[in-house]
């Protein structure tokens, strides 16, 4: 295949979408996760089941939702249940294969902060808060995280632990009684990280084409490790890029702005 022009954001989204297997039941966070999950649905995973916390099950939106409760999500769903039912019967019920989340801060064990930067009672930045994430990260059988990488985001220590990844590493997550297996991959605009089988510390398993280990080090707030077999991500295919761009174009027409899903 010929080399194509693509942005680092597109690289990230396409890579994340590829990690979703066909037929998986995916609890989707808004923004980047929703973009990647819908790209998966429109490419290799037509049978993926998308669940949104507002209630739609099996959504097949024509455009990307701006909010977690857009009408298109309901209209294209197999069914729409109440929000309590989504959290009780479907997420806590253990029916979700993949929880697909974003993050404001992330640490080496893929624990997530979406609550505050700075002190909780005197925050430097007040973030939106927990939403569905603590229970998604707890109850989904596995978790995928998609987030743009920077040293401000990938930090040595979280200001606040909102949603558990692998807690303090090792089997500490399991010991804490969380039912799901936790994060299996973190997909950024630079690379793919996966937890070490034993320590559960994130290490880079694939670099996106053109990205160096040094680029990743500079964009990580701790001393990031690289897998011995660290490979290179496959570039987006023409078909993936076309599908993604068409989706984003339809979305911007529908929402009246340049780009949704961010």
């Amino acid at each position, binding site marked *: 295949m010929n080399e194509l022009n693509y942005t680092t954001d597109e690289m990230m989204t396409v890579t994340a979408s590829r990690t979703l297997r066909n037929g998986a039941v995916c609890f989707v966070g808004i923004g980047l996760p929703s973009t990647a999950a819908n790209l998966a649905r429109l490419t290799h995973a037509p049978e993926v089941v998308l669940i949104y916390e507002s209630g739609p099950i099996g959504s097949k939106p024509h455009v990307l939702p701006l909010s977690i409760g857009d*009408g298109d999500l309901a209209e294209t769903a197999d069914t729409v249940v109440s929000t309590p039912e989504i959290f009780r019967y479907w997420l806590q019920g253990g029916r979700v294969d993949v929880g697909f989340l974003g993050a404001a801060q992330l640490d080496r064990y893929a624990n997530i902060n979406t609550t505050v930067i700075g002190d909780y009672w005197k925050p430097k930045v007040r973030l939106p*808060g927990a939403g569905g994430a603590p229970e998604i990260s*707890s109850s989904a059988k596995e978790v995928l995280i998609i987030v743009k990488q920077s040293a401000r985001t990938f930090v040595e220590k979280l200001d606040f632990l909102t949603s558990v990844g692998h807690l303090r590493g090792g089997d500490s997550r399991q010991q804490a009684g969380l039912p799901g297996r936790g994060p299996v991959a973190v997909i950024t605009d630079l690379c793919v990280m996966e937890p070490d089988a034993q320590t559960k510390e994130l290490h880079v398993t694939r670099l996106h084409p053109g990205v160096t280990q040094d680029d990743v080090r500079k964009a990580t707030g701790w001393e990031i490790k690289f897998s011995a077999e660290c490979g290179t991500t496959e570039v987006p295919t023409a078909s993936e890029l076309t599908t993604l761009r068409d989706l984003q174009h339809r979305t911007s027409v529908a929402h009246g*702005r340049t780009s949704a899903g961010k």
Partner: protein
Amino acid sequence: MAKITTLSDAVRDLIHDGDIVAMEGFTHLIPFAAGHEIIRQRKRDLTLIRMTPDIIYDQLIGAGCARKLIFSWGGNPGVGSLHRLRDAVEKQWPSPLAIEEHSHADLANAYVAGASNLPFAVMRGYAGCELPKYNETIKTIDCPFTGERLAAVPAIRPDVTVIHAQMADRKGNVLLWGILGVQKEAVLAAQRSIVTVEEIVDDLEAWPNACILPSWVVNCVCEVPHGATPSYAHGYYQRDNVFYRAWDEISRDRDRFTAWIQRHIIETKDFSAYERVLAG
């Protein structure tokens, strides 16, 4: 039996200063007209409950109606921050705002407990999460059968719940559909309730097992067309995404926000007058 009345009368009669008020609607059917009317009537010291405060609570908080916010996700969906919420939390403007923060699953369960007349709900959640350190309403409970430790959260029992729905009939039976959120539970958990609707019809012509709130669990039904805009009403109108983005600018600055509230809410008689001002 629900009284069919004006929104102005309903808010005057049922919402008092100091009340615990829940106004629900998960992106869909957010009761904006009712929120405006609360601002217009200058209600004060409210404890506001809402899973996603959204613009509706940004307006109420910035207008000085609230003393406390109970919530689980406080952003402008698809846009960014709620500047009035942040200004109140970070800088106590226009007055200090206490916050009590939960997860979605917690509040959803807490509404269910309220609707079920139970004092608390049990859920598998919060393990490892730091929120319980900052919110003493989140406790744990041990299963009497397995010994498993689970989270326990207190029921939500608002003084008043306010929602918007698509339809009511002339008896005051309410029908909503599409994304249902926690509205049914929020109404059933409350002591009193106000439902604004797009239209009042002779016959709901509801399909089997539709989500209906019988007239006798609702206090006031008020016909307010477009009453959920800038959010949306499935089958009636779309979400006004342009307004959601515009709000980012309007709300960023205290003076601009105050002028907006003055011109659009305080100086308008009701929601249809607001809509005329907004349309220019």
